[in-house]
């Protein structure tokens, strides 16, 4: 591929990652965290920010209430009728004609009718909620993070008079850049064969033999791979330390030094816990790791990776300085830690950096232990189930086979979706931990790292080595 082609592909991929990670994932994570914590603490949670509608529109919506309600209840009733029809059809499937219509018609019409019932009922409920809420669209509070970001930009931009002005300003920037940049080597799907993007690649064809321009679906395919993530993410530590040092505040200084000490400790542990993964996949490239797991089994299936996985999750939470490892910013000891003197979007940048880091570490957990973009039985040609299936759907001439052919772009889209879904699971796990556990004492945090995780990680490397050598 030419340099121009690489450049265009890189820009497209960077925009995609930025849109998904910074534009959608980080705000959605903030929302989910608040929502989840509100549920766990029996509070209302974020739901107040919304888009107010003009008075005329509200009055018009109010007038629509009666017909909407009638329609909703009618289609709700229709849904039950549809289910009853489906039951009748299944009971008398030797007689595929009902009311003079063939069964095939019902198989399409009934789900559509059911969906219509659900949608109209939901629409009616939403309408009621909007009208009763004074004409404001709240969307479950999903607009809350957006409102927060806007608010933070217009908040007072405070700088302590005796602070080191340059370091104080640059610290949030140093935190945010590496968090976003470390996404550069994470693969989010299998390679794209550009000339075949809308074609179906047959199951029997080895995609490597295709003559086509190849676009790896990761921003940069580096031979150092995972080392890049640690090199770049390590820079983020400087942000917290410098921010605390430059703030001219005792709490900030203590928070900053705690953050630096904790993060460097857990960086070592994090780096060592995942060495067994490289040994198993025999590569440092993340895309090759995902490909290995796609061809064999997901990493988590191999017993020597069970303990490293638990250690990895522990280190990941400690590395992002979240509860129960949030001693650097523990409000009951240090006010806000190194964030104490920060306000407005500068505080928001630390905040965003932390959340982006959570997403990055979740993505890394996915690639290292849960197959990355791999979805079981999904090959380059579509789903290829290991059974010998040929199930005829009753009443129709359709046959469900064990091979479901799909277009190349469809396969890749499912892989991207699967990858994002796995990230969501890990992110959700981390925020569940955050709202379930109390904070550790600082000496406990450090002891856990140096006396617990680190020796265990070293032993795991030896176990993995013996496991591989013993099997070969």
């Amino acid at each position, binding site marked *: 591929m030419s340099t121009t082609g690489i450049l265009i592909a890189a820009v497209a991929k960077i925009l995609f990652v930025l849109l998904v990670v910074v534009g959608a994932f980080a705000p959605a994570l903030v929302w989910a965290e608040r929502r989840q914590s509100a549920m766990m603490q029996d509070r209302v949670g974020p739901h107040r920010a919304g888009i107010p509608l003009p008075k005329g529109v509200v009055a018009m919506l109010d007038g629509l209430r009666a017909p909407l309600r009638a329609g909703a209840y009618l289609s709700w009733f229709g849904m039950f009728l549809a289910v009853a029809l489906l039951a009748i059809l299944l009971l008398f499937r030797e007689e595929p004609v009902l009311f003079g219509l063939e069964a095939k018609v019902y198989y399409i019409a009934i789900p559509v009718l059911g969906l219509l019932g659900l949608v109209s009922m939901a629409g009616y409920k939403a309408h009621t909620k909007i009208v009763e809420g004074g004409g404001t669209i709240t969307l479950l509070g999903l607009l809350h993070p957006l409102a927060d970001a806007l608010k933070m930009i217009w908040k007072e931009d*405070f700088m302590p008079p005796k602070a080191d002005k340059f370091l104080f*300003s640059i610290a949030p920037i140093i935190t945010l850049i590496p968090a976003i940049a470390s996404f550069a080597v994470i693969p989010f799907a299998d390679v794209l064969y550009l000339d075949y993007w809308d074609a179906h690649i047959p199951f029997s064809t080895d995609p490597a033999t295709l003559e086509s321009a190849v676009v790896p679906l990761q921003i940069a395919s580096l031979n150092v791979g995972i080392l890049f993530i640690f090199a770049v993410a390590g820079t983020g530590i400087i942000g917290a330390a410098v921010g605390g040092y430059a703030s*001219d505040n005792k709490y900030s200084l203590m928070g900053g030094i705690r953050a630096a000490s904790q993060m460097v400790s857990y960086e070592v542990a994090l780096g060592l816990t995942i060495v067994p993964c490289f040994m198993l996949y*025999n*590569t440092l490239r993340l895309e090759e790791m995902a490909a290995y797991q796609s061809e064999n089994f997901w990493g988590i299936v191999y017993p020597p990776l069970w303990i490293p996985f638990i250690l990895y999750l522990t280190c990941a939470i400690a590395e992002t300085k979240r509860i129960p490892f949030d001693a650097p910013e523990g409000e009951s000891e240090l006010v806000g830690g190194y964030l104490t003197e920060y306000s407005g979007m*500068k505080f928001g940048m630390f905040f965003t950096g932390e959340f982006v880091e959570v997403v990055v570490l979740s993505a890394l957990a996915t690639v290292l232990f849960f197959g990355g973009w791999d979805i079981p039985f999904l090959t380059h040609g579509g789903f290829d189930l290991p059974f010998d299936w040929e199930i005829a759907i009753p009443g129709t001439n359709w046959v469900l086979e064990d091979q479901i052919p799909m277009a190349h772009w469809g396969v890749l889209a499912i892989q991207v979706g699967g990858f994002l879904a796995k990230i969501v699971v890990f992110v959700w796990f981390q925020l569940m931990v955050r709202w379930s556990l109390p904070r550790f004492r600082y000496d406990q945090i450090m002891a856990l790292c140096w*006396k617990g995780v680190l020796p265990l990680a070293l032993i795991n490397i030896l176990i993995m*080595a013996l496991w*591989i050598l013993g099997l070969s």
Partner: protein
Amino acid sequence: MFETYLPVFLMIGVASAVALGMFLATTLAGPKKPSPEKNLPYESGSNTTGANHIRLSVKFYLTAILFVVFDIEAVFLYPWGGMFRDLGWFGFVEMLLFLVILGVTLVYAWKKGALEWEK
């Protein structure tokens, strides 16, 4: 070589642009209304005493030194782990020696009390 790393530089550039954009937005849009009380170092309402750059426990520096030792170990382990299957038993014994030496370092630091925070 250049073409491999081009997207990385591009990504770092875009990340810098996002960070700088956020920074500039709040610097330009945020109001600045300093007052004598606001300018004091925030300590939950009580007046600050002494210098703000307090002395810190030597443990933090010890941790930093240990970090350098063990992070370099991790860097050595990465390429080794990446081609472990090709090296076989030879690579295993070589790295075992290295790990034992570092294990002794960890035990030494442990026994010397470098990992104790309670005292």
